[in-house]
Each structure stands twice: as C-alpha cells, then as structure tokens.
C-alpha cells in the first residue's frame, strides 16, 4: 500500500505514493531519477547518500521517504544555479578534491552543511565535519582544501 507524500526537492514540488519502507535515498534515485545521491553502504557509515533536509545534512539511507513528507530537500543536482557552479563544487574541481567521484556528492552536501553553520572553519573543524563521509581515493587532503577554497570564496 502506497503512502502519499509531498516533498520539495531542489525547489521543485513532487507528490508521490511510496512504499512505507522505501528509503529516502531510493525515492530520490529511483522515483525522482536524481542519481547524483549515491548508496555506498547499509549501515549509515559512509555518507555517500548525504543530502540537505530542512536545512540540515542527513544520510538519506537512514530516513524513510515517508519521514520526508513535507520536507524541503537539496541534493547535489540542485547546487548549480543558472549554469554557475556553487563555490563548493568549484572548490572540489580547483583543488582536485575528487577522483572516482562516487563519494563526492555526499562530501559536497556535508561541506554545504558545515559552511552554513560555520563559514570560516579551521582545518580541524573541516576534518571533524567530514569524518562521517568515507573517501577511498583522495586521502581527504584535497577535499579539505576544497572546503577551504569554498569557505574563502563564500566569505569574500
């Protein structure tokens, strides 16, 4: 039996009937075709599925789609505005903050959450904020630099 939900994703309103057990990440990927949000684990450990829900970073594999009823969600697809990259996206490119790209959307959304709360984070604060997101490629160093790049750009 489907449960009706209404959500706003990247500024667009959606209404859908979903299986009560459907995870939010599967709703985004399978129903809305927003495949930028990835699934990297089944224990809410890796952070590849991180999205912004009502202004806060959440792991979308840890929420049911029905729990998002009425929520406003921002995914990686919603960051670019009028063909212009968000400074965090730009930072990832400029600082080579990604290799295979799989963890990248989750990293970017976690960084978005951090910079919203703390526009001028220290290196230690950035590393602490990212510790719930796994990257197997970059060694994290250039991800930290990407966030520093974005922080500098956003505060200037």
């Amino acid at each position: 039996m489907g449960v009706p939900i209404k959500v706003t994703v990247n500024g667009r309103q959606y209404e859908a009937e979903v299986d009560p057990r459907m995870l939010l990440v599967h709703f985004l990927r399978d129903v809305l075709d927003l495949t930028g949000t990835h699934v990297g684990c089944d224990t809410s450990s890796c952070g590849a599925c991180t999205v912004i829900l009502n202004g806060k970073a959440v792991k979308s594999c840890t929420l049911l789609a029905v729990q998002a009823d009425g929520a406003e969600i921002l995914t990686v697809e919603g960051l670019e505005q009028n063909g212009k990259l968000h400074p965090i996206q730009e930072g990832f490119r400029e600082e080579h903050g990604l290799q295979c790209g799989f963890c990248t959307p989750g990293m970017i959304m976690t960084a978005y959450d951090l910079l919203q709360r703390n526009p001028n984070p220290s290196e230690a604060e950035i590393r602490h904020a990212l510790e719930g997101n796994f990257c197997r490629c970059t060694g994290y160093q250039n991800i930290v630099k990407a966030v520093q790049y974005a922080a500098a750009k956003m505060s200037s």
Partner: protein
Amino acid sequence: MTTYVGKPVRRVEDHRFITGRGRYVDDIKLPGMVYAYIVRSPYAHAKIVSIDTSQASTAPGVIAVLTGKDLEADGIGGLPCGWQVNFRDGTQMKEPRHPVIAVDKVRHVGEPVAVIIAETREQAKDAAELLTIEYEELPAVVDPQKAVEDGAPLVHDDAPRNLAFDWEIGDKAKTEAAFQEADRIVELELENQRLVPNAIEPRAAIGDYNPGTDHTTLYTTSQNPHLIRLLLCAFVMGLPEHKVRVVSPDVGGGFGSKIFHYNEEVIVTWAARKLKRPVKWTAERSESFVSDRHGRDHRTKVQLALKNDGTFLGLKVQTYANLGAYLSTFAPAIPTYLYGTLLQGVYTTPAIYCEVYGVFTHTVPVDAYRGAGRPEATYLLERIVDLAARELNMDPADIRKKNFIPPFDGIEQPGYQTQVALQYDSGNYEAALNRLLEMANYSEWRRKQQELRSQGRYIGLGLAAYIEACGIAPSAVVGALGARAGLYDSATVRVHPTGKVSVYVGVHAHGQGHETTFAQIVADKLGIALEDVEIVHGDTAEIPFGMGTYGSRSLAVGGSAMVRALDKILEKATKIAAHLLEAPESDLEFREGKWYVKGTEKSISFPEVALAAYVPHNYPPDLEPGLEAESFYDPKNFTFPFGAHLAVVEVDPETGEVKLLDYYAVDDFGNVVNPLVVEGQVHGGIVQGVGQALYEEARYDENGQLLTGTFLEYAMPRADEFPMFKVDHTVTPCPHNPLGAKGAGETGTIAATAAVANAVADALQPFGVKHVPMPMTPQRVWTAIQASQQVS
C-alpha cells in the same frame, strides 16, 4: 615546449561528478528491467542438502528462482583463473572448479547459493526469506598455516594439504652460504593482515539481451571490460564474442577489487538471456564484504643476514599466502611474481631466497588489492631493515644508504639485474631519500624526539624506501611466467574532419583522471586545444581490445600505445601537409599545431590538414583518405617507480593510541603528465597504507565467520585521522617507453604501511617493544607495551 603536459590541469571529468551527473552502473535504468537478489551461504563450509524454491517462486513479483543446478543445466562453466603458478616439482597448480553458484557444497560465507529475480529489489529480497535451504555444516579452516597441517579440513578434495601451489625464487644455496658467513641474523615473524578493498561504489552489474539481434550487453563495475568479455564469452558462457558488449561506465573506485571476473557478472548475463529482460544486481555493502575479493593475508618469516657494519648479505623469506576458497582471476600471481620478485627492494643484497605456499581456506577469495604483492614485500623488507638498524644501533637512514643500489639511468648505465629475476629500468634511490630527509628536516625531528622522550612523550620516526614494479610486461615474458593473458595495451586516435579528436583507449579510468591526462598528451602532441580532445574508455563496442587498468599501468602502457598512434597520425598528416604546401616533407617543421615551410611563414594548420584527409580533392596520389590510427603497445620491460616516505607518529603509552603527526613522501614516477593528479594518487595511497597499518582488518573467527563484515566493524580511515601530507618528487625517466613515465597509482599503499609500522616501533623503543602486529590498534599497542614491560 608543452602547453599542457607537466601542468596541474584541472580535470575535465570533474564537471559531471560534482553536479551529480556521473553515470555509474547502478544509475542505469533500462526499460523492463528486473532485479536480482543473491542468496549467499551463511556457512564457511557446508553441504547443500536441499533447496526448496516452491514458496519463493510464487511470492509476489518473483519471475525466477535460479540455482547452481539450473546454471549447470544450461552449460555454464566455472570462473577461470588467469595465471598459473605450478608446484616447485613441476606439478600443475591445483585449480578446482570455481562455481558461479554453488551446487553441492559451499566453501566460504557469502558464496552464491541461489538467485531470486523479481520485478522490484524489495520483492526479490522478500522472496529470499521464503527460500528454504538445508545445509549440513562441516568444519572449516581459515588460517593458512593451520590449513596445511595434517588433518585440517580440506577446502577441495583434490587439493591435498589445501595447497594450490608452492613456489620459490632466488638462489637457496647461495643464500644459505651468505647466512653462514654473516656476523648476525635478524629475524621476524609477521602477518600482513587481510584487507577488504572497499571501493565506495559497491559492485553492480546489469545484463541486457536483445533476442532480435542476439546481442548481449553487460554493464559492469569493472576495471577491464575487454578482459571480462573474453573470460565471460570464451571460458564461462561460450558466447560469440562479437555478439557481446561489455560496458564499464563511470566506476566508483576499484583498487584492484574490480579487476576480476565475478560470479554476479555471469549471473545477470545468463538470467537476462534466459528471461529476455534486463536484469540488475547491485551489492549491498555487507554483501560486498563477503563477495568482493579481499587483499593481502600473508603469514611470513623473514631473516636478514648482515655484517656488523650494516652491510646486507642475504635475505630469506617464507610465506603462507591465503588464497581463500577459490582461485580468483589473478590470485596466484600476487604472492609470487608480484611479491617474491620485489624482495631485492632498493638494496644490493647479494643473495635472496623466498618460498611461498599458496593455500586454500574457507574464506573469501584473495586477489590483487592496491599494490598487490608489492606492499607485502615492502612491509617485511622495511621492517627487517629497521630491526637490523636497531640491533646495530645505526640510524635507519644510514643503514639504508649503506645498502642502496647506486644510481643508474638505464641508458648510460645498464639496468640493474636483481637476484630475483627482474631487471630494474632506472633508479636513484639515495637521491629520493636525501630529498626526503631534507624536506622533513629529519635530524631536527630526531633531536625533538629525544627532547620529548625526556618529557614522557613518545614520538616515532618511520622510514620506508621502496621500489614498485608497474606495467607488467612484455607479454611473452609474463606468458612464460604463467599469465594466460597478454599485457600490452591499445589506443585508436580518430581525427574528425574539423580537426577535433576522439581517442579510444584500452585502459580504464575509475578515478585516475585519464580523460584529462591522456588528453593533455594528445593536445600537446597535435598542437590543439585540450577541449578539442575527448578520451573514450570503458565500452568494448567503441574501444580497441585493451587490458584495462591495474598495476599502475595506464600511462606507461596505454599512454605509450596512444603516443605511438599519435606518431602515426602525424606521419600521415605531414605527408598531406607537404602536398598542400607544395614542399618536400623534409622542408617542413611542425610546431604548435601548424606545419611550416622552414624559414618561411607559409603554413597549414592541423584542422586544415584533417579536413583535406576527409575531403581529399587536392591530395597526395598514393595516400588513403582519412586520418585515423591504432597502435598496440607491448612494453619491453616493467617500469620501476621508487621513493622514500617518512611517517612521524606519537604513541600514548597509557592508552596505546597512535596519532599520525606528520607524513612526508618523495616519489619518483619518471616523467609526470599532471602533478595535481599524481599528488592525488599519492595522498589516497598513503591513507590506504596508513589504514592497513593502524585501522583495517578483515578478521574471521575460527568457524569462518567474517567478524568485520560491515563498516561498523571494519575501520575505514577517516578525514580527522590525518595531517596534511608533504609530498615531492624526484624525476628519473623510464628509459624504455616513449613517455618516460613509470606509474603512480600504488606507491602510497606500498610505502605508507611500512613507514607507519616502523614509526610505531621506533616510538616504542624505550619500552623495548620490537614489533606490533597490524593493525596497530590502541589495544595491540598497549598490550605490546605491557608484555614488554613484564619481560624486562
């Protein structure tokens, strides 16, 4: 002059990834697609008594429930092994059948037992609950040293003592003689623990069959689509290769684990053909833990014979390599030809002998994982060298310098012939170490270490000087060593009439950045803009037959193939240019994308020549139209990157916690195309290497249950555990490939594990601790300190 090569060009592939528009296998949705759920063995060793599919088959949405018997009935074979390593006495390697789906017996937790295919992922999973499988549990063995003992449970009835092979390299008699003459012998028993590669993208596969054309497409998370197609068609399913296309689109990291031909690739292909609907399977992470091939898992005894002045005289190594329950695609090569052959390291040790036992156990198969054999060799070598330095009261840097192979460029001075078969191409090992010591201000760290010790703080410095072998080749040689594949690579350069260029490469990028780095080379070579070049990879319908990406081979082998193809393009284009400029070829010079008649301003551009090749109205009489060239490149030798790393750690003796304070790396990859990309490779490798040293371990209990089967138990390295690394390079070009490049993908994992292990041992020297087993968790470090204190 170069416009792009050698510069930190920002990656062209990034845009799709940072905007969420990458296209990974699990992102692909085909019309009519159904979902496979794989039911896996909960036992390490058991007889399958019966499988009752009746209830599951009638569950909502279920289309099929398939078992190993169905697969066999359809004539599907076992998974092949791509490398044969025979016993020392010449007996053939034991190569038991590796079933795609188990039929009468299971041999590791996670082995596929049945497949449920349903309209949705959830329906398939629900139906799995209704499947009744009766097992009769049998005793299991997980430790490779116990597995060879008399009376140990046998993984395969036809492999006595659970041995797949035993193998040796080096001169045993000469090494024994060296040990007789030695002033002292330093020895150590160590374990190179089992790791799970854990690319962040879980494996996935989609089979798609078109009954109209009899074409089959397999989308798979693979590092080498052509190899998968060859194995799938010729060895497993008996399909005509020209009717099968394998696509590896964006792949979210591999680290070796996506080289191999996997059960699930066969399952979705077979099921899609059977059901005539696209079939998708995507691993859940806990499924990845028990089905992705694991890495490392060696038990080793190492002995170093030396003079009291620190000169190395001989090295003896005995290793039990855990291969898991079946031989994975390249498994036999990893603990042999990619391990024993690296035991010369960067030292002049005149006598080396190594013997390796390849052992079956009731665990997930083990195969190549980033570094593959070379981190294992480096770990034992660099640990024993450090122990020797400690016994002789020498600084670890000094004992290394005393034994380094002197510099050689491979041109003026010949390559260095090792005691263990390889001939190094070029090297300057002391230069790399000197640069490292200078960059790290090593002597200042040593001073600080003493100062802090007097304050009760325990800092450790760990060096690792390493060598790597990349771009395994030439094919004839690796064939003689047991490889059942060639190890060349290929590229096709297609110049379009407007002068834009598509390059189709046989290597595959899953994070390495080939779409940028290869394009840098093309753009410079043809004198065109980077944005006028596209690098295409990963689709057997588009690219020439290539061997894919692993062993840091892409640039040295695939890049060299591309350079050769570009040379052919320029050769032909120059003929066209000469005709159009009405000048002999010898009067032309090509620079920055234009052919000039020497000494004049008369010129013609690359796009003009390209257009003439496709609109050949005014054209050289005997020349074919078109501008496209292909090259297959089989290297003359391996390439041998090297370097030296320094880890600085602090150990808290109260808690056993190890903190990485600083990390320095000096690597020599030969010529570098994109320093930004290369540094990224180094950073990532260091974190994986440190992960092995401090955090990661795939641990089984004695019944063969994986105790670290999710990210909650398997400790992945995290952002807050690392300082900013300081990295630098020396440049010693490879003398035998056109790029002078050596490869940069694995050095971090090769050096960092040993460097950190040495650093922890160095920190604990005041406590008399000689060695801490990996991963060096707080508990293990604390226990080592306590044990040592009790002794003293």
